[in-house]
């Protein structure tokens, strides 16, 4: 039963920073074609730091809880710091063992964030 731990379910049921921003500096949306999950992230940047972040979308517990956790982590951080967040950081944050299919769920929010932070044209792409 360990894949549905309390912390994860809490984030799923009461996600942090859920919603959209009226005039975001960065807004980006990505989906996971395997399961149709979709996450959008809006960022408000002030003095090169993330002042506000919101996410919305639809997906399973893991993709939505991971997005909620990620938004908590990045508030107040610079875009450069955001670009440094790795796949392993993300999986550590989610904190439960995941199979290859569901790793994609856990990483969807990070994909959205990084693609947004780099600007889609400069994004080096997902980590292997």
């Amino acid at each position, binding site marked *: *039963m*360990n*894949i*549905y731990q309390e912390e994860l*379910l809490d984030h799923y*049921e009461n996600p942090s920073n859920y919603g959209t921003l009226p005039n975001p500096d960065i807004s980006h949306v990505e989906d996971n074609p*395997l*399961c*149709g*999950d979709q996450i959008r992230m809006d960022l408000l940047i002030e003095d090169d730091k993330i002042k506000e972040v919101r996410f919305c979308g*639809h*997906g*399973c*517990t*893991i993709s939505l809880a991971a997005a909620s956790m990620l938004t908590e982590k990045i508030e107040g951080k610079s875009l450069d710091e955001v670009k440094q967040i790795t796949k392993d950081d993300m999986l550590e944050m989610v904190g439960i063992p995941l199979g290859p299919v*569901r790793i994609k*769920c856990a990483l969807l929010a990070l994909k959205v964030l990084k693609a947004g932070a780099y600007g889609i044209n400069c994004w080096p792409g997902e980590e292997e």
Partner: protein
Amino acid sequence: MHTSEFRPLDVERIRKDFPIFATEPPLAFLDNAASTQTARPVVDAMDAYYDTYRSNIHRGIYRISEQATEEYERAREKVARLINAPRTRQIIFTRNTTESINLVAYSWGNQNIQEGDEIVLTVMEHHSNLVPWQLLAQRTGAVLRFLEITDEGLLDFTQLQDVLTEKTKLVAIGHVSNVLGTINPIQSVTAAAHAVGAKVVVDAAQSVPHFHVDVQQLDCDFLAFSGHKMCGPTGIGVLYGKLELLEEMPPFLGGGSMIRAVERDVSSYADLPAKFEAGTPSIAEAIGLGHAVDYITQANLAAIQVHEQELLKYAHHRLKEIEGITLYGPSVPHQKAGVISFNIEGIHPHDVAGILDTHGVAIRAGHHCAQPLMKRLDVIATVRASFYLYNTVEDVDRLYEGLCRAQKLMTRRK
């Protein structure tokens, strides 16, 4: 041939042929529409090939090669008998249903489909019976047209007369929907298609393993299915075609085995079925498939069908008790095979699958390679349980308990 005397399945004995069920508590394997377990006699037959007569088929002038050829061709005879093909050479071995359909799309399609011709599909097709026709339409300028389904999940027959015209050259249709379980009335479709001069390709991946399919009765022009969905191995599939069509068609893949004589610039091709079997085929897998055919015919396809119907009825009955559940597909059992798709309000299908997995229940969640159907049903994904001859009422109970657990966990404070 198929014995007419009916005897119910001895499920307990059957389960002994599948070592995966020997664990305690046993795995509730309910993902048979994706791939079934392989029966022990099938694995034994493939082992015997690898251990005692491993060699390439055809042209080998030594004993074990002759034996391998014999076994490979015997498998073809068994498959021909299974679907009542008039001639054994109408059975072409491929890798799977997908390759069989692609063979028709390239070989028959390139030769017979022209700009403006229409190819009729249904909205419930698996991608394997959709994408090859999209590619053919892109190559040739042909137009795809779709038969819709009713809200009940049945083929909308009222449309048929409007969609089928003298422009229709081909109808490609699944025998059984891998999502809804809907059994399509192929005989009526072939009659209507032939009346306008169109050919019919049947994706029988979900039917041949589960009930008796007779290609002469269906009168279809092509029929495709896979070994791995009928207790056989992966890597082996079947294409059946009408003799006059197969004989007229150009080769699909070129290479060894499919030739008669090869000059520097041109070749002449072998007779059927070799013309369509270029290169060394999946020998062990074909032999395995032959034994899988033996296995399911000895179990008796009519008994398998009855058994699955009983499980389906029981599953319908139990799952309906769950609050917030939506079942997709026909509710009339005789129009539906042993596939049950559903969603539970407020729980993502992937979460359902994840929680069921921790409960020892293997089901599938996702779009089931039928994205246009998902759109039609207005869902992103569904949860799907699908049955086979070794499943039990206890498997359904485990599914039900797992679903209750998922619901409790995911809606605890709502």
